[in-house]
C-alpha cells in the first residue's frame, strides 16, 4: 500500500514539475520581451492558435468520456452553443449549461 501511495506522490510531483517548467521558462523569457515588440506579437498569435488547436482537438479527437459520442453530435452541440453565445449578448452561462444537456440527450437518442 505505502509503495503505491509513494508512487502516486511521485507521479504528482513529476506531473507538476513538467507543467511548471513551461510556465517558469515563460517568465524567464518574458523579462527580455517588451509588450510592444514584434516577437511578442508573434508569440501572441501562437498562443491563440495553440489554444484553438487544443480545443479543436478536444472536440474532433477527444480522449476519455467524450470519445463515446459521435463526432457529428459533438460538432452540432458546439455550433449551436456558439450561436447561442452570440445571440445572448455573449452570455457564457446559457451555452455551457445547454451544451451539457444537449450532448447527454442527443447521445442517448441518436447513438449508433
Amino acid at each position, binding site marked *: 500500500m505505502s509503495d503505491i501511495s509513494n508512487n502516486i506522490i511521485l507521479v504528482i510531483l513529476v506531473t507538476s514539475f*513538467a507543467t511548471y517548467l513551461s510556465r517558469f521558462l515563460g517568465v524567464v523569457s*518574458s523579462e527580455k520581451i517588451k509588450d510592444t515588440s514584434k516577437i511578442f506579437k508573434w508569440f501572441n498569435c501562437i498562443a491563440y492558435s495553440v489554444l484553438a488547436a487544443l480545443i479543436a482537438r478536444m472536440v474532433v479527437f477527444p480522449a476519455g468520456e467524450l470519445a463515446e459520442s459521435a463526432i457529428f453530435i459533438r460538432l452540432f452541440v458546439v455550433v449551436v452553443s456558439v450561436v447561442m453565445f452570440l445571440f445572448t449578448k455573449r452570455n457564457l452561462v446559457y451555452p455551457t449549461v445547454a451544451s451539457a444537456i444537449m450532448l447527454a440527450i442527443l447521445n442517448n437518442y441518436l447513438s449508433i
Partner: protein
Amino acid sequence: MINSKYFFQGFKSIKGLDSPALALGASFIAIGALLKNIGFNLGQSIFSTFLTYALPGSLVMAESFLIGASLINIFLAVWLVNIRLYPMTVSLMPLLLHKSQPRWKYYLSCHFIAVSAWLIMKSNYQSIEKKHRIDFWIGIGTGTWSIAIVSTIIGFLASDYLNKDMMIGLAIVNPVYFTCMMVGAMKSLQISLSIILGAILGPAFFFISPEWSILYGGVSAGTIAYFVGEFK
C-alpha cells in the same frame, strides 16, 4: 505587498455572466471523479490539482498512471501536452511586468496560467493600470485555482453518483466554454486568423503526428496569421 483592491477586483471575475466557474467546475469535477477511479485518495487528488492546475496535463497523468508508464515517460508526455503554457506565458507576462513590483510575484503567479485565467486576463488587462496588473492577475488566478481545487473535491466525493450521461455532459462544457471565449476574443484580423487556422491545422496535423499535432498546428497557424497580419 499585494494591493487588495486590485486583487479582489480580479478575484471577483469568477462571478458574473462570463465567469469561468461553470466550465472550470465541470472539468475539475470530472478530474476528481477520474482520479478517484484510478485509485488516488482524496488528499492525493487535492494535491494533484493544487500543484498541477492544468487540465490536459492531469488527464495525461491519469492515462499514463493507469498503463503503468515510467516516471520519465510521464514527465515527457505531460511536458509535451502542457508546452502550450510557454507561449501563453510569454504572451501574457510582458503585459504585467512593472519595475516597481517584486519578481517573486511573477514566478509564483505563473502557476495560475491556464486557459481560463489567461483568456480573462487577456480580455481585461487594458482596463487596469500596468503597475497594478500583477495584483489583479493574482486575484484572477487565486479565484480560478480555488474553483479547480473545490471542484476536484466535489468530483471525488460525488463520483459514485455520476453516471455516464453526466460525465459526457461535463466533458463537453469545457471545450464549449473555451470555443465561446475564443470567438469572443476575435477582435483583430491577426487574432481571428490565428484562432481559425489553429482550429483547422491542429486536428489536421493529428493525422501526421497525434502527440505533436497541437504544437505543429499551433505554431504554423500562428506564424501564418502573424505574417498575414503584419504585411497586409
